[in-house]
């Protein structure tokens, strides 16, 4: 039975974890220092037997620690959602399951909840004081900023503070939890990025090609989510229209050559390319129309706006 608390800290434990559960005690100290009633919930995504044993041992003496076990590994988004469903605190704090950010930074994020609805960390190095993350992170965030119009600099930071109203409103399926700050900003919540000190032991695992692919797909999904939602035909129509225009120009060029300059069409691959472009353009356009139809038939249910207050 969950008691009423002001702050719920959720630690989704996926691949990267601290086996000994030492982080739990560290977080516990930092949270106690805030002077708010809180719960510290570990969501075990998959079997983490060793960690679970340690946590259970800690929980015996620390009543704030709670453990939620998922039946198998579902991914971080599901772990977070499960954590949200089992907690009640008005302020939600997500914490990385491995030593990523100094636990002392929790206070700054939680304090900023007076003025903001979402606070996300931006990691900077302890030794040099410089922002961490190389050119790749900058490139990723630059791209995200370009397509969405919202500039963030460290969406991947695992330490975030959110109001419950934010998590209630924004669905977190797939990998979208990573973009929660961005989605919240789009819905008109007040979002702030705060500098946090990276742990000195923070381990950057070697990034595989799979991670890059996943990030790229993240960007793609955010593009669709942002561009699509209201007017799909504008997006599809633009891409389809360009392909169609290029294709038709090429076709007419080829036809003019065939008719007036007697250049045979038979051995020209350009013909195939251009007619394919025309067909593809029209297909994209048709898809855009289908999208419009979906929006139109559902527009009555999807409120496009979010209301802050109503007087009288």
């Amino acid at each position: 039975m969950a008691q009423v608390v002001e702050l719920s800290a959720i630690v989704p434990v996926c691949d990267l974890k601290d086996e000994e559960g030492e982080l739990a005690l560290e977080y516990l100290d930092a949270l106690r220092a805030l002077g708010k009633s809180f719960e510290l919930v570990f969501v075990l995504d998959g079997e983490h037997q060793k960690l679970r044993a340690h946590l259970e041992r800690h929980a015996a003496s620390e009543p704030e620690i709670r453990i939620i076990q998922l039946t198998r590994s579902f991914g971080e988004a599901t772990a977070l959602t499960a954590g949200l469903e089992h907690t009640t605190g008005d302020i939600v704090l997500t914490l990385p399951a491995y030593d990523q950010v100094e636990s002392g930074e929790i206070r700054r994020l939680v304090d900023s909840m007076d003025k903001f609805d979402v606070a996300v960390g931006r990691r900077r190095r302890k030794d040099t004081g410089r922002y961490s993350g190389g050119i790749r992170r900058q490139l990723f965030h630059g791209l995200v900023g370009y397509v969405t119009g919202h500039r963030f600099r460290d969406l991947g930071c695992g330490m975030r503070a959110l109001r419950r109203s934010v998590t209630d409103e924004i669905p977190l399926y797939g990998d979208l939890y990573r973009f929660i700050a961005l989605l919240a900003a789009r819905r008109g919540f007040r979002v702030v990025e705060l500098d946090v000190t990276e742990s000195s032991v923070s381990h950057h695992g070697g990034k595989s090609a799979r991670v890059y692919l996943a990030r790229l797909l993240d960007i793609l999904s955010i593009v669709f989510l942002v561009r699509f939602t209201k007017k799909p035909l504008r997006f599809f129509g633009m891409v389809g229209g360009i392909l169609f225009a290029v294709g038709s120009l090429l076709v007419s060029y080829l036809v003019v050559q065939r008719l007036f300059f007697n250049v045979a069409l038979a051995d020209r691959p350009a013909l195939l390319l251009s007619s394919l472009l025309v067909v593809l353009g029209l297909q994209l356009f048709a898809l855009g129309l289908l999208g419009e139809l979906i929006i139109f038939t559902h527009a009555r249910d999807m409120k496009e706006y979010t209301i802050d207050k109503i007087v009288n």
Partner: protein
Amino acid sequence: MAMDLSVVVPLFNEEDSVGALYESIRSVIDDLEMEAEMIFVDDGSSDLTYTRASQIAERDRRLRVVKFRRNYGQTAAMAAGIDLAAGEIIVTMDGDLQNDPRDIPKLLEKIDEGFDIVVGWRFNRQDKLVSRKIPSLIANWIIGKVTGVPIKDNGCSLKAYRADVIKHVPLYSDMHRFIPAMASIAGARIAEIKVRHHARKFGESKYGLSRVYKVLLDLLTIKMIATFSTRPLKWFAMLSAPFLLLSTVMVAWALADLITDGDLSLPIAGTAVLLGALGVFLLFSGGLAELISSTGTFEVDRMPLLTAQEVALPGRNHPMDNDAVEDT
């Protein structure tokens, strides 16, 4: 709470005009013998619009103020006001004092005559000629031609609606420009009357003329939805028919060539196959469209039913008329 009239006004950074706006609307609805409310929708203003409006709302219970969390645009603001409105008749107008609330009684008169939507026409529009009036003239002409609803001024915000019609018309993105066109799909009776238009007193024009591209695509959407109000498969089938036909002819041609010359014309055969593929794709898109429009919460083909009414016959009580039932 049942109301007779709701006046919906979207506001975006109108701190200077909100007071005057309230006064002018209030003086009009005070003279009307109607239960009326005003709904001011603050579309995420960055100035004191909301503060000033809510101060007025403290004095006058008839004024409701809605505050958006951020700026969502004029259509969304109108949609929110319309969603919240309790009146049987809903009047929308601009928040920049360019519309004149004194025209509201004229609009209501037309509604009483039996029209579902009354559209204002700013016949002496007080805006810049080249940047506003000429593009709007062209846009209105095109919209009228394509939708078949010849309205001289689609962009005028001052409109009156019967609530049961407007509350069922999907309103999103920039669609407010097409409300009359969409409502006419629903069979609404539309009237257009001349309204006053004043030059801007405060601030800059905020909702500039949208780019042509967007309006044209919106128009295409409306046209598509309007034409296939019965069955979308038919619309897509019509679209795919010329491609399928052309493809069949070209295949036949290529085959004839093959038989007579013993030589297959690759360009013709290739193009034929591609066009055929496109035709099939469009046909199946129609199938998908059919699925969407029948599972959607708003069925396009139900739109004309919004305005269906039983004709009152002499000597009979109107079955839907509760007063008549009570009398007998």
